[in-house]
């Protein structure tokens, strides 16, 4: 049987993805994973062997995130995902699409973003998501559905004309195109 500590090590990559989906910031995500691991180690006696370790661990990380958020009352708007995640061989248009997606993701409520990422990226079932996030299966499904629907609306342009995100994306594109025409780099535009 896999030991408690081995299970912690094995689940770290998934915790990182969950943490990044919640914080939207790599540095904050690393801190969150470390804090969650500390909490889990401190509470390891409360874990019942043979029960769902993954759900237990994801809940600890989630609770830690919520607890930190309450303490700091801070909404991080730093978007450092694109800079290090974009494939180096991506074309200009492809990078823009990913940046648009990243920007749209950052506008989703944290619980919807987390649900979407855990299902789509981690391949988690709705049942497992519900257990990992401490909600009903119907709620888990609803979060993923609403996240998909909202992103689709944003990314395909099915939005009111005065929508702030679309205006921001359109402004960014316009600035990028302008800079490209002038032969200027545009990387700094996405370091906000």
């Amino acid at each position, binding site marked *: 049987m896999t030991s408690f*500590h081995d299970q*912690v090590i094995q689940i770290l990559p998934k915790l990182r993805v969950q943490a990044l989906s919640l914080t939207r910031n790599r540095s904050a995500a690393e801190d969150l994973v470390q804090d969650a691991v500390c909490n889990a180690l401190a509470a390891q006696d409360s874990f019942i062997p043979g029960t769902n370790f993954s759900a237990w661990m994801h809940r600890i990380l989630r609770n830690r995130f919520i607890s930190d958020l309450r303490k700091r009352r801070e909404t991080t708007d730093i978007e450092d*995902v694109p800079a*290090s995640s974009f494939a180096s061989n*991506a074309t200009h248009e492809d990078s823009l*699409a990913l940046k648009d997606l990243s920007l749209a993701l950052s506008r989703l409520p944290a619980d919807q973003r987390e649900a979407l990422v855990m299902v*789509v*990226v981690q391949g988690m079932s709705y049942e497992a998501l519900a257990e990992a996030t401490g909600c009903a299966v119907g709620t888990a499904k609803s979060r993923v559905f609403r996240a998909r629907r909202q992103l689709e609306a944003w*990314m395909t342009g099915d939005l009111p004309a005065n929508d702030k995100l679309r205006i921001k994306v359109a402004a960014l594109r316009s600035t990028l195109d302008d800079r490209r025409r002038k032969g200027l780099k545009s990387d700094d535009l996405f370091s906000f």
Partner: protein
Amino acid sequence: MTGGEDGVPEKPRQTMSPGEAENPFDIWLKRGLHQLFDDVANEPIPEELLRLIEDDRSEQK
């Protein structure tokens, strides 16, 4: 279908009915999310974090 040659998503072009199994937007979204999150999962675990876990393992013995 909607993915680029290098696995990089292109912009979604259209929407389909919500129940469509092969919804082009869902395919595009999945590719995009993997592009944004996969390398985070694949990065090496920081030594400090591994040491923290191993130290606790030793203490528990």
